[in-house]
């Protein structure tokens, strides 16, 4: 009985390994630097990973259906630039139209949706390979961002536009008399992940996504219109990218031609560490959130641990390898004890859990 309980606890821990990493890294960095585990810093980690998080949500949706969306980093930059151009004054790099910020937000979200629609239509209707389609889109959109700006950043955006990304929801006083601003983006991020989790877990559409990713033929045989599901996940991914653009532009109070550039690998890494399989049908959004947090903690933690900038990338790579190593140990332990069911439920992205049993 006792050992059974211990075993259950163990399995629970193994199931939620990503959260173990999150907690351990929090503890380790707190021990390394006393300025890490401060309310200010923790709040900041959450708000700064918000754009990344939104991209991870979109990416997770496509990955669950066994599709890539590599274009989302460019979609984020492009939508942010479109909105910024429409909203900012000429002096600040905009077109001088100075439209109403809400119109700007609507347009930017619509552009995101359009990009997703475009990807989706090409992939589902014209039979393009999803990887290449989105790589091409990545180039087209980044190029378009450079072209419309042209090359210039745009800043000083309207307050209402900035609020979600950079605004404070409320302020709480700290012991040292300073006020801690609780950023709206932090709540939005958590809210977005909850919504995304709810969508994937509690809507028919969400379950259809898993079905399509797990086995497209079987899903189609069950009357699920796989092409429609895939079209929709790309639309959602485009929408999330636009939201990420909104958060980023708000936080930075500007849109730059390079906004979002180079985020795609961190996005995929966060999703995969969080248990979303690159091969579809596995993983959940809560795990992906853990992946995002871990990435954010490493990012900040390494700076705070005063690792030299020259060494930061090295350390990040090494830590990532270490996390995967622990995961591999887990898998091999499970293999030895042959707890096959746990393994197949395990939240770190295995290609084929059964194969790992061999």
């Amino acid at each position, binding site marked *: 009985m006792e050992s059974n309980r211990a075993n259950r606890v163990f399995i629970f821990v193994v199931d939620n390994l990503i959260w173990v990493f999150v907690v351990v890294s929090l503890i380790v960095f707190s021990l390394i630097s006393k300025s890490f585990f401060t309310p200010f810093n923790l709040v900041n980690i959450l708000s700064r990973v918000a754009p990344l998080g939104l991209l991870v949500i979109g990416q997770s949706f496509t990955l669950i259906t066994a599709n890539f969306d590599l274009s989302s980093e460019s979609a984020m930059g492009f939508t942010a630039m479109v909105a910024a151009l429409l909203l900012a004054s000429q002096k600040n790099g905009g077109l001088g139209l100075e439209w109403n910020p809400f119109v700007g937000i609507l347009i930017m979200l619509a552009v995101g949706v359009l990009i997703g629609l475009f990807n989706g239509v090409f992939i589902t209707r014209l039979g393009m390979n999803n990887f290449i389609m989105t790589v091409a889109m990545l180039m087209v959109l980044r190029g378009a961002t450079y072209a419309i700006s042209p090359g210039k950043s745009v800043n000083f955006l309207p307050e209402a536009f900035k609020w979600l990304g950079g605004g404070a929801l409320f302020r709480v006083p700290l012991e040292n008399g300073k006020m801690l601003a609780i950023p709206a983006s932090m709540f939005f991020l958590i809210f977005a992940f909850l919504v995304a989790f709810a969508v994937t877990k509690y*809507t028919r559409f969400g379950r259809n996504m898993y079905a399509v990713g797990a086995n497209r033929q079987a899903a189609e045989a069950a009357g699920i219109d796989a092409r429609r599901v895939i079209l929709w996940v790309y639309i959602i991914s485009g929408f999330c990218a636009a939201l990420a653009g909104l958060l980023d532009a708000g936080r930075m109070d500007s849109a730059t031609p390079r906004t979002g550039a180079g985020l795609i690998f961190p996005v995929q890494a966060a999703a995969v560490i969080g248990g979303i399989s690159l091969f579809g049908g596995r993983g959940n959004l809560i795990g992906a959130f853990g992946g995002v947090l871990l990435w954010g903690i490493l990012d900040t933690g390494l700076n705070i641990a005063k690792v030299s900038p020259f060494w930061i990338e090295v350390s990040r790579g090494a830590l990532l390898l270490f996390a995967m190593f622990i995961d591999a140990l887990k898998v091999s332990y499970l293999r030895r004890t042959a707890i096959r069911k746990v393994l197949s439920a395990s939240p770190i992205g295995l290609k084929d859990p059964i194969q790992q049993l061999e």
Partner: protein
Amino acid sequence: MDTSQPVILEMKGISKAFPGVQALENVDLVVYGGEIHGLVGKNGAGKSTLMAILMGIHQMDSGTLEINGHRFTSMTPHEALEAGIAYVPQQVRMMDSLTVAENILAGNLPVNRLGLVDWKATYQEAQERLHKLGLELDVHERVEGLGVVEQTMLAIAKALFSNAKLIILDEPTAALSRVDIDRLFGFVRSLKKMGVAFIYISHHLEEVFEICDRVTVLRNGQLVGTYVVSELDIPKLIRFMVGEDIRDYERSSSKQDDPVLVVKGLTRRGHYEEVNLVVHKGEVVGLSGLAGSGAASLGRALFGLERRGIGEIWVNGKPFTARDPRQALDQGLAYLPQDRYRFGLVGSRPVRENVTYTILHQLLNPAGLISFFKERTLVQRYINDLGVVCPSPEQRVNLLSGGNQQKVVFAKLAATRPSILVLHEPTQGIDVRAKIDIYRIVDELASQGVAILIISSEVRELLGVCDRILVMYNGKITAEFKAGEPVTTPENILLTIEGGNIYEQKQMDPVRS
């Protein structure tokens, strides 16, 4: 058969050609409601193609199709589903990473007032639906955690839930043990009572007699006829399928005295214990047992696919130390796996490559590259020797019929010139004619001095081929039957397989429990 039932399906004059093959020519098929309709024929006779046309996967070149009175001149997969036709392939492919409940209700999950998926209701409904069909599965379990029968039954159940009236079962028993087959048949019969019709494709003719009402026979893409099963017998059916009487298989090889494979006290906890066995040169030994008896584990372990545990193994008088398949092959032991799609063949590669995977090192020219000339001649020789029917050695192997695929696996193993060949369910999914071919191949190999160990749940097959049959129960070898001895009867063997003891002379029905 109950002719009072309405006609569900009527296919008339169906023809279909593939590049280079006339797969079907002018074939008719009529199925009534509540009927289990057998569909038999040699490998490549066109059974799967006919069904693919019915399912809208292939388009027929000519012919008509009527389902429940609706006429179709062409069919899409979607229309087929709408019309109530469901296909359960041999390799059931479901949404592995999702739970049983979700697989059942996919695309139509119950929602609450807010439009959100109601998981409690989902599990409950799935449970109830399964219960109504008399199927008890844990609906919370992921499908990848289920066994093969459970998956097949689940697939049938799923089809019914989407209002299928006619379910096509394509070789559903190929990977099942007898116990599981009984479970499946029980399930199918109970559904038949509810008015569901089945088309049942199988190479196990006894099964056709066991479960089918009528049977349609195809030969080389042409219709031979449709017969009421109770008016047929096996030899007749075989004659219809093959077009001639097939000479019964007779052993010609004979066992020699030198032991090739010697296993002493092999033990792996939880799988098998204290296994002792000897296979001699030219001898064919059968090994049978229930699922979980350890027979299959033993085969895989010998080949190095699984851990082996402790104990001694000798091959040709030398200690057998292989830790992986490569070493096993090098030390003279070859293994034919049960699941040929997953372990036997690389489906997307040509026949030529599949045949030579095991012996590439022998085909190298002085430059260390593969000599295509040597390879082609060798492959051609095996294709001729084993009678593999394929348009060319460059054909992708998964486009061949089942029997020919199995021959390719044989060719691959025979090419290594093994001393001992372990065969695991070698005739699964293979037609009667090809089975005989396989037996001949086995016999031929034995007469060349290869020791052969066949692990199979088909007792009749073992009786026809083996010199000796060993039975495993609960991880131990519990009985040995020698060919030609009076105790060596199917009944006795089945009894021991199920754990009984023939010397206790208990009168019990050995075939079914």
